[in-house]
């Protein structure tokens, strides 16, 4: 009888060429199909193929799965699969004492040990057995045995090692491998030997668990209670692309994506370039500026203009975004943030573009900013970004990040028919008493300007980056008019309706509040749960709309004696709330290219609750 456990964290780690992303992805998919809640964390180097066996070339994929609702990819590993010494070196510190360590002994060659910086093989000095359940396997040999009937070469056998490891871990946690089998059959349909060898390696791993007495126990993780419905596993990149596509369908406007390849945003270009059947036009431009320029041009013509990028690209696009601010045209900018400054760490996550998104343009340049809180949440955040852009005629920046883009979780598939309609409300008639068209004659309530697209007879007009006269929209250098227009543009964005923030405090007596935005939602929520499990009261507020901020946010923050703002930057949101609300908001920053550490944050929050109680 397998032993029941509540939650498990497994990390697959190996060389960039070892197929760890794929292996982890499949294990996550199996777990999701089994009805567990899952959160995944891929972590890979920027180099496509770093020197084999090197520390720099280690790629990993972590899967957290549970019989209950979980919100982070987990911290302390229950299982580490280390395909070589470098992977062991990098990831062993994350394995909990007593955890399962599966490693490929055939890779502990002198050369690989040198690369990883081991003078003596850790397999030989007894250190690993003392702290972990060490499973040393000659994966080359056992995989070779499993795939022997297919007469593959050494290299091909080596490539199937990951499937053997997947089979073994799947056995250990009683996973149903059907989805992986189906997936392999589909993926390698055109190469029957490769398909059969991978299937055999997968079964080989499973049988190895079943037939040897390598593991004393086998585990099972029960399904969580999920609302009935259809589910899928979804990454932030997929969810973002689908959100944009859904907004195109909901608005009836063609989706035009202008993009220049940049990590970690390129997947959005890849996803949407496959959607031509929806009329989606993707344009791989010559640079970041051309990408956003083309998107704005498409918007001017009445399409849904979108550009996708990461921090360095956002910096290049800012002048064009400012033109969209001045011309008050819809434009959606997706910034998949990565660690900066400059090129920084392209594949690693960070939240340090907030101030760039808010104020990184010349002049007073208000732009709505939205930040999704989880991979699946990217769907509705992208949809909402489009809705605001189209209905209020403004550029909107969505701040995703590398963790959200690459991470994945189960998602209750929404009903396409129930998505709200987005009405772009194109102007078709003159709007002045003289029977002329004044492009800056605003709606008195929302301050939105009318949007007349080329091809509309009688509404011909010119717009541009020069200051406009209020109403008419002709060029104006008048000082008083400029003062009015600057204030109108600010007020226009400030009036955009956003949902209220919520004060989450089951105890009702919390004095300390933790405030987050964007992708830190998972780590903060997990830390808050741990604090509460200890019976310690704490309130949580999470903000999705960063501009305009929820109208009640100031009031909520003032309920707390102290506000902690954990961020993957040096306190950018903390600075905003201190400036705006004059509250005692304190920053807690970690910038390791990874989501915030839950244990570390929990300890900090506990110490802060303690302090506040003694003040």
């Amino acid at each position, binding site marked *: 009888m397998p032993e029941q456990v509540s939650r498990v964290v497994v990390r697959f780690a190996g060389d960039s060429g070892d197929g760890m992303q794929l292996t982890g992805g499949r294990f996550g998919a199996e777990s999701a199909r089994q009805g567990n809640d899952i959160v995944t964390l891929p972590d890979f180097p920027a180099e496509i193929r770093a020197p084999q066996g090197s520390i720099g070339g280690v790629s990993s994929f972590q899967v957290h799965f549970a019989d209950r609702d979980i919100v982070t990819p987990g911290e302390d590993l229950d299982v580490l699969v280390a395909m070589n010494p470098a992977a062991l070196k990098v990831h062993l510190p994350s394995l909990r004492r007593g955890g399962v360590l599966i490693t490929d002994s055939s890779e502990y060659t002198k050369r690989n040990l040198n690369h990883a910086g081991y003078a003596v093989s850790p397999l030989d000095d007894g250190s690993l057995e003392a702290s972990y359940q060490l499973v040393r396997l000659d994966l080359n040999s056992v995989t070779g045995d499993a795939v022997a009937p297919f007469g593959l070469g050494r290299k091909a056998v080596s490539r199937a090692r990951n499937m053997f490891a997947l089979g073994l871990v799947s056995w250990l946690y009683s996973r149903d491998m059907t989805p992986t089998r189906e997936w392999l059959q589909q993926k390698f349909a055109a190469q029957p030997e490769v398909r059969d060898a991978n299937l055999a390696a997968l079964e080989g791993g499973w049988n190895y668990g079943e037939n040897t007495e390598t593991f004393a126990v086998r585990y099972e993780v029960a399904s969580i209670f999920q609302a009935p419905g259809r589910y*899928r596993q979804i990454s932030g990149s997929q969810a973002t692309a689908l959100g944009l596509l859904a907004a195109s369908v909901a608005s009836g406007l063609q989706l035009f994506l202008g993009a220049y390849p940049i990590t970690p945003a390129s997947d959005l270009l890849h996803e949407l370039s496959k959607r031509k059947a929806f009329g989606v036009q993707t*344009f791989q431009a010559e640079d970041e500026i051309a990408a956003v320029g083309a998107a704005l041009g498409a918007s001017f013509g009445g399409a849904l203009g979108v550009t996708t990028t990461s921090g360095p690209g956002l910096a290049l696009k800012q002048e064009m975004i400012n033109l969209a601010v001045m011309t008050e045209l819809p434009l959606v900018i997706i910034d998949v943030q990565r660690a900066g400054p400059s090129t920084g760490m392209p594949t690693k996550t960070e939240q340090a573009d907030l101030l760039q998104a808010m104020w990184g343009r010349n002049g007073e340049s208000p732009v709505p900013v939205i930040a999704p809180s989880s991979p699946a949440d990217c769907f509705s955040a992208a949809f909402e970004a489009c809705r605001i852009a189209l209905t209020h005629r403004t550029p909107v920046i969505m701040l995703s990040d590398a963790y959200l883009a690459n991470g994945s979780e189960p998602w209750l598939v929404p009903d396409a028919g129930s998505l709200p309609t987005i009405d772009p409300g194109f102007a078709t008639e003159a709007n002045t008493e003289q029977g002329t068209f004044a492009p800056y004659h605003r709606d008195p309530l929302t301050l939105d300007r009318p949007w007349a697209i080329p091809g509309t007879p009688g509404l011909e007009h010119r717009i541009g980056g020069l200051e406009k006269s209020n109403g008419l929209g002709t060029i104006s250098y008048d000082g008083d008019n400029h003062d009015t227009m600057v204030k109108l543009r600010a007020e226009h964005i400030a009036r955009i309706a956003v949902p209220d923030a919520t004060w989450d405090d089951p105890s009702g007596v919390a004095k300390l509040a933790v405030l987050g935005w964007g992708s830190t939602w998972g780590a903060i929520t997990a830390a808050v749960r741990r604090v509460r499990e200890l019976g310690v009261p704490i309130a949580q507020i999470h903000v999705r709309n960063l501009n305009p901020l929820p109208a009640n946010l100031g009031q909520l923050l003032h309920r707390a004696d102290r506000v902690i703002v954990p961020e993957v930057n040096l306190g950018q949101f903390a600075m905003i709330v201190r400036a705006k609300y004059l509250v005692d908001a304190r920053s807690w920053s970690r910038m390791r290219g990874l989501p915030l550490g839950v244990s570390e944050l929990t300890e900090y929050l506990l110490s802060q609750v303690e302090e506040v109680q003694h003040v």
Partner: protein
Amino acid sequence: MSEASVHGLGIGGLGQVPLSINPLKRKDFTSDQEVRWCPGCGDYAILSAVQALLPELGIARENTVVVSGIGCSARFPYYVNSYGMHSIHGRALTIATGLAVTRPDLAIMVATGDGDALSIGGNHLIHALRRNVNLTVVLFNNRIYGLTKGQFSPTSEIGKVTKSSPAGSLDTPVNAVSLALGSEATFVARSIDSDRAHLTSVLRAAFEHRGSSLVEVYQNCPIFNDGAWDQLTSPDAPDGEGVIKLEAGEPVLTPGGSYGLVQAPDGHLQVKAVDEVGLENVIVHDPGADDPTRAFALSRITDSGVMRRSPIGIFRSVERPSFDDLARQQIATAEGGPADSRDDKQTQLQQLLAGDDPWTVS
């Protein structure tokens, strides 16, 4: 959609632009904005030529769009009573590209200058031309930065003394026509502000070309670079100099007709007295030649210092499917689409939302 209109070949640059129901006049394209160029500026002549040409093209005014960047020339859209955007420095072509790809029913003109197109926007010019987006690019070349009050531009001659180059500019100037030809442009032409008839005929051909058309217009800046083109058009110019008009099927001769272009043994073109070489040896212009080598050689006849001699006219005009037509064709022929009705799209979207590997919890 017929095969021809999908490929866009054979239908001309304006083939998908609706025609005007009523005949339009020049004043229909004249906006109520006061023109604010300096007196004597060559931009007036270009504006006047365009305003006169647009009604002759027969297309609907509301389907005409002028996009510009920054600079004196960039004020152009304000003065044409159609849709227009005065954008940011060097980026007009990027905006026009997005517009052209999504709106085949628009006639799009980009008004740009030597600084806007060849300096800050040089990259976009190269890529718009090689893609062959269906646009008409009119490049106002006055060999100077006017709006910023007189610094040397990428077309200024070496040694140009300006406020920012008191000891003379060190930059070798760029030849817009050579650059365009090197960028795989399908239509490359040059004209001059002082020859209204020539300018109009070149602009007409550019609008009617499907794909990117580049028209460089030599334009006088009376304030900061007055007379930059005077020696080209001077009646006192010695024979063998001046503007060399390129006419399809005609021998390439200087204004007086006594000098012509001949091919030297190493392939480059030389200006030789017709008497010496014989008219039969003067090259005959063929803008439709598939190979751009001869057109490039013609572009090198242009002086790079003081401008005494330069060919004008259509250097190259060839057919190649335009980027936007091909992009729309990919959509029109996409597998499983394009879904026409919103209901169809919703059904397709639902499948996509569920992905390849959904599961059901009951």
